[in-house]
Each structure stands twice: as structure tokens, then as C-alpha cells.
């Protein structure tokens, strides 16, 4: 059994990655990845919400009437998102301000609905919880890579600290303004998908 849980946890990181393979949650990964700090906070928030909503919906799955299941799922997710939002406001207020509306928009994040429909509705609570954590990790990983690249090349900082020595700027180096704009995030996702598929041939569609 332990083996099954490990694969639930590790598969979404690479072969079933929510962003690059399932292509869910692209919207937020473009919006919040200008800097690393908000991106990682966002990733962790999504991970927590996915895990707990998966577990809750999974334990309710036999009692939810099929026709209103989306509404029930939304209620659970919305409640969890509000809790996360309040915690962020209480403890990391500036990051919460940067993320602004995107924490609230976790409700509409496709990863959540996707996992609830595809996994939690047909599996037991504990595997569902693990699946939520795994997908959250996969999401966070991609967010970390994108935001690292964008912050380093776009602002010359990592986690808010300046890492590019001032000598570079005197020599004529400039921050890349395109990295701040969302299109570049899309291009970086494309490059990640490119690299990932050239390493894992089984992901290439015909």
C-alpha cells in the first residue's frame, strides 16, 4: 500500500503534472509568478486547499446527490479558500496584498475541480488527501521554476534579495522587461513542457 501512496505523491510532480501535462491552472501560474515569494505562497495555498477539499469531498462522496455535486464541491472549496485567505491576511499581509484577488480565485482554479471530479469522487479520503498534496506539489514546483526565472531575469532579485552584482549593470546589463509581462510566463511554461517531453518520450502525443 505504501508504494501506491508514494506514486500518488510523485506522479503529479512529473508524469501527471497538473500544469504541464494535465494543463490545468495555467491562468494563475501566469498571474502570480513575477516574484518568487507570492508564487510559493500561492503554491502552498493551492496545495492545502486541494488536499483538504479532496479529503472532505471524498468522505462525503457517497452522500452527495450527483446532480448537485458541483455546488457542494464549490461550497467546500470556497470555505477552505476563505480560511486560507484569512490566515494569509493575518500572518503575511504584504504577500496577501500582492496576491490580491488570486487567492480568492483559487476557487475557480481548474486543478481543484479537476482533482475533485477525477479523483476524490471515486476514491477514499486518505488517498484523495495524498493526491491533493501531490498535485499541489507539482503545481508549486512549476510555479517555483517560472517565478525563479522571471524574478532573476526580470528584476535581478531572488526572494526579494538582489543577486545580480551592480558591476553587471555598470557594464550595460539591463533587466529584461519582457519577463515581467505575462506572455513570457507562457513562453517559459512552453519551454518547460518542451524539455519535459523531450526527456519523457511517453508524454508526446501523436
Amino acid at each position, binding site marked *: 500500500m505504501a508504494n501506491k501512496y508514494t506514486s500518488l505523491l510523485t506522479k503529479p510532480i512529473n508524469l501527471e503534472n497538473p500544469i504541464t501535462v494535465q494543463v490545468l491552472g495555467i491562468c494563475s501560474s501566469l498571474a502570480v509568478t513575477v516574484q518568487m515569494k507570492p508564487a510559493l505562497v500561492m503554491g502552498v495555498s493551492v496545495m492545502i486547499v486541494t488536499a483538504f477539499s479532496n479529503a472532505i469531498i471524498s468522505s462525503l462522496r457517497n452522500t452527495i446527490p450527483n446532480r448537485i455535486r458541483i455546488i457542494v464541491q464549490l461550497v467546500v472549496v470556497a470555505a477552505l479558500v476563505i480560511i486560507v485567505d484569512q490566515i494569509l491576511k493575518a500572518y503575511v499581509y504584504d504577500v496577501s496584498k500582492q496576491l490580491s484577488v488570486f487567492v480568492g480565485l483559487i476557487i475557480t482554479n481548474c486543478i481543484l475541480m479537476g482533482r475533485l471530479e477525477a479523483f476524490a469522487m471515486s476514491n477514499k479520503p486518505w488517498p484523495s488527501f495524498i493526491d491533493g498534496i501531490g498535485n499541489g506539489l507539482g503545481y508549486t514546483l512549476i510555479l517555483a521554476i517560472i517565478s525563479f526565472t522571471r524574478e532573476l531575469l526580470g528584476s535581478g532579485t531572488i526572494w526579494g534579495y538582489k543577486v545580480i552584482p551592480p558591476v553587471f549593470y555598470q557594464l550595460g546589463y539591463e533587466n529584461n*522587461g519582457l519577463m515581467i509581462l505575462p506572455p513570457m510566463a507562457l513562453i517559459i511554461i512552453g519551454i518547460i513542457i518542451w524539455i519535459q517531453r523531450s526527456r519523457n518520450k511517453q508524454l508526446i502525443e501523436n
Partner: protein
Amino acid sequence: MDFLRKYLDKIKPNFEEGGKFSKLRSTFDAFETFLFVPNKVTNRGAHVRDSIDLKRTMSIVVISLIPALLFGIWNVGFQHFRAIGETVGFWEMSWFGFLKVFPIIVVSYVSGLGVEFIFAQIRKHEVNEGFLVSGMLIPMIMPVDVPLWMVAVATIFAVIIGKEVFGGTGMNIFNPALLARAFIFFAYPSKMSGDFVWISGLSDTSTKVVDGFSGATPLALAAQNQFEKIPSLMEMFIGTIPGSIGETSKLAILIGAAILIITGIASLRIMLSAIVGAVLMILTFNLVGANQYMMVSPLQQLMMGGFLFGVVFMATDPVSSTQTATGKIIYGFLIGVMSMLIRVVNPAYPEGMMLAILLLNSFAPLIDYYVVQANVNRRLKRTAK
């Protein structure tokens, strides 16, 4: 030539399968076919084989670019010495310009071809010659003071993201040269816009500039509502104005256009319909006349900025433009309309040509699709009767 042929034949076995340098096969192939027309023979069926192939086509485009390039080189020197108030001879101006422009050309070719060769080796393709033209176009649409490393980064970006990910030459959706310019335009806006980047040495504060001299391009002047300062039509036609390296001289561009049209390489349809589209848009603006910019006459608008350069060399790119005859008219017309619309209505972008062409590049397959569908439907109706 015989000597060259013999030499190539002698070293050829080294590059073939199992040879010493078989890894560099596509590199060798690229140089061989660049020097000599490949002696391919058709095996099956009747074919008409023209001596013109992709390499010859590209070479003619490069030749047609040369007048604009030479003028641009001279103009770089001319603008520089006019800005600092010195009078020097023709050759000194040209030499100054050459020293400024040549490194940009070298960087553009080296970085772009480098990427092309690497991809050709990895994917075991032939090296395609599409970059011959892009590599020449990129320096011509750059401001003269652009840092060389930016040119390199932008070229590499444009070749990889604009071309190689789609499958190389002939598969690209966007014009790679324009993509390189768009990259710098959005990534390093301070080097691609403003009044100081168009004339060499002006961005350096230690340069002594003649009193009252401004390096603003005609388009920038128009966007700042300084219409009285815009150079005369003649100056803009000859090209003694600040601007990107190759775009200033409309005369040189028209010579290039003539070469392209006579040899049948670029589409006259696209050029004409783009100009018609632009003129109609300007006339519409003239009718509306909400502000001074809208009142600028069509002739003056066409002479400003990179419109003509874009129409002749960028919009007619055979790969990223539409393929059908009707599609070409629609495509060119919309480029003309969009470029003037962006120019006049959007104050953030003084020149709309680059964005207009890139936008229509992405619509080109759609336009073609509907043109073909319309034809299919028409013929179906005819047979149904």
C-alpha cells in the same frame, strides 16, 4: 570555380556517414549548397526544375536589401556628425557608420546561424537558409546604439521561439526578424524608444550636441504634437532623418522593392493592398479629424517611420504571410489599416508597423482557411445546381 568544386569533392567523404566529421554533415551540406546549385535529379515523373531554389531566392532578397543598408550606413554617420555639429566628408561619414553597423550585422548572423547550425546537427536536418535574410533584416530594424548583447539575445530568442519550436524554416508563424525587434521593444524599452537611441552617441550624456538639436524621429515628433518640426517630404523620401538603420530612405527601399517585384519574389499584391489599406485608414482619420495627428496627409504618413520598409520586406515574407491570392489582399489591407490605427490612436506606440505585421502574421492561416473554404463552398454550389 573548378578549383572550389574539386576541393569540395575531395573533402566530401569526410562528412558522409562513417566519415571523420560525420557529425558536421549538415554544416558541410549548407556550405556546399550555398556555393553550388545541388545537382539533384528527379527520378520519377515529369518535373520542370528551375535553377532558382531557396538559397537563390534568399540571396536576391539580400541583394534587394543592400541599397537600404548602404544608405543606412551613410545615414548613421551623417546623423551623428550633424548632431555634434561637425562637417566631415562622405567617406568619413560612411566609415563611421560602417564601424557602428557592421558589428550589429556580425552579431546577428553569428548568433542566429549558431542556433540554426546547432539545431540542424541535433535534429539531423539540413541547415536552412531562411536566416540569411532574417540576419540581414535584424540589424536594419534596430536603432544604431543598441547594445550588441541585446541583439544577440533577441536573435537567439527569435530563432528558437519564433522558428525552431515550430519546426524550422518554412514552418514559422511569425517573422523572426520582427520577433527579435519586438523582443527588444518589450524587454528593453529604453534602448528601443525615446529620442536618444536613433542617433549614434546621443544617449551618451558626455556628447556635446548642437543647441536645439533633437534626435526624435518624425513619428515621435508627431506623437508629441510637434508637427512643425517634422522634416520635409523630400528629406523623409531621401532618408536623411533619424530612425532605425535601414528604414529611413524610402528611395532605397523602393529600389529594393523594384528588384523584388521584377524577380517575382515578393508579392506585389500584399504591398499594394497594404498601401491602399493605409491610405484609406488615413483618409478616414482625415475625415474624422479629432486631433492634429489625424489631419496628417496620406503621403506624409507613408513617408514616416518604418511603414514602407515593413510593407516591402516584412509583410511579404513568403512564410508568415498568407498563401492564397485573395488572402494576400485581405492580409495586406489589414496590415495597412492596423499600422495606421496603432500609430495614430495609440500614443504608447509611436510606430505600429511591427505590431500590425506580427498581429496579421498570427491571423494569416485563418485568412487562408476562410478563403479556401469560400472557394470550396462556391464550387460545391456550382455542382449542386
